């Protein structure tokens, strides 16, 4: 269980904003083991989201090495990276990013559709995940007919339908009320106990403290790391 899944060596990512160069990531080193639970905290512009995007292969670092399951993924082609995103990584967004014209079931089905999985298997998997998340009676509702908590649960179902190893959640509770947020975090933590590595970017200190590893970022650098006791 304790093998290195993600290894970042001296990762740097700079953006040009007008005249200024912004160091979104400045010499970041990070090692994540399979099944880890990390929270990434820090003020706006500290590079939390960029870190998540680099790990999720949506962004390419300027310098440094990124090993994912011992593969140097920074040098892969766009197509190969897309394949890894598809198979290994699940994204969860603050604003859910559900496709408004598709039903809950169709939104969950979408990654499998893009991956070219046969319809019968898709149907089985969607039914199973709908059942597990208690969304069966919402399967044929469109996103605008669902509550915020339900939408995020659909998004989580979509992120996990391809059975990824890593879940990347960027402010997953940011658009939710306290109670729904709590439920969503519980769903994510349950997935973590089943072996999925969980990385949550958040502003919420209480949320941050729940993770076993709590990382604070400032100005593109990892400022500190706290090891919390695993909450029950």
């Amino acid at each position: 269980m304790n093998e290195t899944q993600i290894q970042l060596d001296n990762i740097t990512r700079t953006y040009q904003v007008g005249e200024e160069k912004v160091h979104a990531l400045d010499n970041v080193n990070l090692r994540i083991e399979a099944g880890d639970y990390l929270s990434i905290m820090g003020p706006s512009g500290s590079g939390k989201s960029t870190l998540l995007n680099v790990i999720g292969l949506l962004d390419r670092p300027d310098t440094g090495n990124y090993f994912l399951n011992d593969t140097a993924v920074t040098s892969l082609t766009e197509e190969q990276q897309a394949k890894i995103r598809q198979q290994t990584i699940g994204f969860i967004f603050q604003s859910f990013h559900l496709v408004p014209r598709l039903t809950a079931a169709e939104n969950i089905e979408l990654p499998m559709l893009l991956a070219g999985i046969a319809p019968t298997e898709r149907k089985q998997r969607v039914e199973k995940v709908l059942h597990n998340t208690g969304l069966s009676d919402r399967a044929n509702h469109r996103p605008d007919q669902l509550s915020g908590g339900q939408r995020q649960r659909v998004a989580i179902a979509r992120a996990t339908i391809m059975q990824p190893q890593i879940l990347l959640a960027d402010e997953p509770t940011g658009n939710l009320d306290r109670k729904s947020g709590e439920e969503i975090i519980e769903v994510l933590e349950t997935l973590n106990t089943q072996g999925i590595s969980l990385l949550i970017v958040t502003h919420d200190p209480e949320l941050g403290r729940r993770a076993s590893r709590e990382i604070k970022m400032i100005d593109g650098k990892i400022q500190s790391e706290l090891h919390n006791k695993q909450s029950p």
Partner: protein
Amino acid sequence: MLLKDFIKLTLFSLISHRMRSILTAVGIAIGIAAVVLLTSIGEGLHQYVMGEFSQFGSNIISVQPGTTQTHGGNVAALSTTRPLALEDGEALKKIPQIVAVNSVVQGNAEVEGNARQRRTTIYGVGPQSPIVFEFYPAIGKFLPDDNTASPRPYAVLGSKVRDELFGDINPLGKLIRIGGNRFRVIGVMESKGQILGIDLDDSVNIPTARAMELFNRNGLMEIQVKYTPGANVDEVIASMKRVLIAKHGREDFTIVTQDQMLEVLNSILNVLTFAVGALGGISLFVGGIGVLTIMSIAVNERVSEIGLFRALGAPKNQILLIFLGEAVLLSALGGMFGLLLGVGGAQLLGFAIPALPVYTPWSFVFFAEATAILIGLLAGVLPARRAANLDPIDALRTE
């Protein structure tokens, strides 16, 4: 992605914006319908004209005086062209493959008969003219095979001239005057109707030598020759040239086969069809711009969705295909609708105005649909490429 899912996904995107998808498709439909309708009319006209020209049967060769070649030196004394004479026609009859020869002079004269006058076209023709044109007398006989130099003054009336001059009276044996000369009516031609505005029924046939006299011509206007079906045209032409050069001393005449005449006509009519098709193409072009506009809007609206698809593991190519697919599907559906509209319109037009020939060849139908798909591709490429090249992070940030 599986093909079935791909089609479903693109179709679904189009359906979710039903109104604007329909309107865009209608733009393409109108373009395709215009092209199909206009080319149908052009092609109908084409076939109609070709049909009119080839109804005399094929295997006809025409000899005309003079050549179109340019000779060196403008020496007036040497460049005189000998006119085609009646004897030339007689000589051509001796070529074995030649079935019939018709020496022609044409003019206009006043015809007087049964105390009525009518100005009409006078054809000076040989006795074998009906064989050449497959155009026979309805009553009486055609001109007899007289001495070509001094034939008897007989006339065969066109059906319209007969109606105008004699009405219900039997004209056979009656005397008429053509330009002051007396002719005896021995036959009336069958009714042929108009061919490209020339009324063949409004004419009178008289012997060639008499017509030359009447119009004061020293040569023929044309010799028409019919050869046996299946004979080698080039051999026939070669024999004709030999015979005529022997009589004229040099090649001062032009031989044109009917195939050549039809070919020229055919190419002119093809240009016409192409030209009207191009006119329709303008509206198709406008329809294509409509697709381009809608696809650009669609990409702008779905930026965040594109970001999501990328995050879910869709490579750039897949995004490109999805938007190209939508553009192609949109214009293909529009194209099909346009085909129905165009073919239906053409049929309706043919039904409403029977005089206007319309004809839609299947090749046009396939070509039009292929064009619609191609336009979808062309119009889709730009927006689809923009979609594929969006930065996924920026795209996800867009709400």
